[in-house]
């Protein structure tokens, strides 16, 4: 087991596209770490550079205490699961799982025995003679996992491990992967473009944009306090309300209504300053009438759309031509056309100045 450290890691593709821009990152031993970002942000390049499939243009990759920047992938003591699993179609499950041991010149009987052990742990023992083409997507994924486990590598790298599964299986696989990683305790880095996946599985995560890491933190930190408007807009199954606001003393003027300055930004704003006020729909309390005697301000508007999210509803309000969304528990959803009020939670709302979070 080993920590992974990236020092000013840079990757420039021929033609001048900068995929990674002087990244610094430390992933401690045993952590389950997610690289999250929209497509083209460099997250897969970063994973492939850690694996050694891409050579870094500058900077260093350190695994354990060893600088492996110029070491071939096979010498880095890592194992990787590819997006399409890359199971060899001409080998059965046993040979696929035992392949890394074959490269290490482990005798056939021994490597088949060890492949059988690992596969049994993942519930694959009845599939050992099948070819990958005869397996379901979920089974293929577990074979790919068994194969990396057989390597006993110091770190695992997963490239979009769940994207080839259908939606229902994906949830199961998510739980399964997290449990497996916890049991094995192997440092694991995985790439995903699905923020829900990263939030659900990772111990910590990095949100990337255009070759730069925009925020590193635990899922809770990233969800509750996005460091900038990019992360704020990217994280969360319903996007955060990001509203233009002007500071007026202890309140913010947002879409013609006054809301109190959030706790996180109290005392840090200058009067008359133009900022962006951010609040998640989940932290926006909807009410058909303004709460009586409440000191909290609320945004008054008209209900435009109500979307069913299952156990809750997403209500879209038109507040003086500004769109504001709030999540309402089931049973109390308004009708389209109703007047309504959205009261942001003061302890959860955030203020962004020039795109960056205003915080102590």
């Amino acid at each position: 087991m080993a920590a992974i450290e990236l020092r000013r890691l840079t990757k420039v593709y021929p033609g001048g596209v900068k995929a990674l821009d002087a990244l610094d990152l430390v992933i401690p031993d045993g952590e389950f770490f997610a690289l999250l970002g929209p497509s083209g942000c460099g997250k897969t390049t970063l994973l492939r550079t850690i694996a050694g499939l891409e050579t870094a243009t500058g900077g260093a990759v350190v695994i354990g205490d060893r600088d492996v920047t110029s070491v071939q992938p096979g010498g880095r003591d890592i194992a990787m699961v590819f997006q399409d699993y890359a199971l060899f179609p001409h080998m059965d499950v046993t040979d696929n799982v035992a392949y890394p041991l074959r490269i290490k010149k482990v005798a056939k009987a021994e490597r088949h025995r060890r492949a059988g052990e690992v596969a049994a742990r993942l519930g694959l023992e009845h599939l050992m003679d099948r070819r990958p083409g005869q397996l379901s997507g979920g089974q293929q994924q577990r074979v790919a996992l068994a194969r990396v486990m057989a390597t006993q590598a110091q770190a695992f790298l997963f490239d979009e491990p769940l994207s080839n599964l259908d939606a229902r299986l994906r949830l199961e696989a998510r739980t399964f992967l997290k449990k497996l990683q916890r049991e094995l305790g192997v440092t694991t880095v995985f790439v995903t473009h699905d923020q829900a996946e990263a939030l659900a599985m990772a111990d910590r995560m990095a949100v990337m944009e255009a070759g730069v890491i925009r925020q590193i933190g635990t899922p809770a930190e990233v969800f509750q306090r996005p460091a900038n408007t990019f992360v704020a807009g990217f994280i969360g199954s319903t996007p955060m309300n990001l509203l233009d606001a002007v500071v007026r003393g202890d309140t913010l003027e947002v879409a013609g209504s006054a809301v109190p300055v959030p706790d996180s930004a109290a005392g840090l704003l200058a009067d008359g300053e133009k900022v962006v006020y951010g609040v998640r729909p989940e932290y926006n309390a909807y009410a058909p009438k303004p709460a009586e005697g409440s000191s909290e301000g609320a945004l008054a508007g008209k209900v435009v759309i109500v979307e069913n999210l299952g156990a809750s509803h997403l209500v879209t309000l038109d507040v003086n031509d500004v769109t504001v969304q709030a999540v309402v528990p089931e049973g109390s959803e308004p009708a389209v056309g109703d007047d309504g009020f959205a009261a942001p939670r003061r302890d959860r709302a955030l203020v962004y100045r020039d795109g960056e979070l205003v915080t102590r």
Partner: protein
Amino acid sequence: MTRFVLGRIGFSTLIAVLLAFFTIPLLWLASAPLTSDPSYEVRMPDFTFDNFQAILEHPYALPSLYNSLLLSIGTALLVVALAALAAYALSRVRLPGRDALLYALLLLSSIITGTAAMVPLFQLAVELGLIDSQLGLILILSGGLLPAAIFMLKDFMDSTPKSYEESARVFGASPLQIVAHVVVPLVRPGLATIAVWAVANVWGNFLMPYLLLSDVEKQPAAVIMYTLYTEGGQANLRLLSTFGLLYSVPVVLMYLFVSKKYGFRFHGGIKR
């Protein structure tokens, strides 16, 4: 109505003539060897095996089939091995002007046929001491087939996903191990196609062995076929037809075998 009927009759007649054009030689090949006195017409055979007896007694007939096998299998092995390595490298390594190089090779090899290059090839063989040598012939035949083989195989290689190789690489496999464990098994249908194509090419090649082999004991069947004449200078139809049948059997068998085992595909692609 009459026009329609006449049209149908005309069309059917045309099809019948075309079919006859292709089937009659085949029927002749099947019947003549079993006929005691074959001519150019297709007749009901009298099922004699005298002709086979005669061809077995011919001093060069059976050895020439062996020579043909040796030459074609030797060439096919060499072509498959070299083309696989070259196609893999060309498919995976970015070279400036790679596609231009491939097209130039393909074009040149199809424009400059054996006939056009006859004299220089002969001289080259003489200079290298490869005249009257089966190894020399195999090398020259392989050289002629390689460009097209590389071109076809590169397409197979291009269509195999890179992640298989990258996966093997991360597990520590060397480039040769990757080729042996992953690439070759994946493109096996392509290799089989190239091998069959090379065998069929060499099997039917008359000019090169005729030119480069002077020892009649080294001649392949295609050349020996040419010597089956009677003392009077007439084509010996008994021997020719029988030998022709024997000559075609191995190639037909090979096609059937490979087609059953791999199926013929002239394009790449992996079913996933």
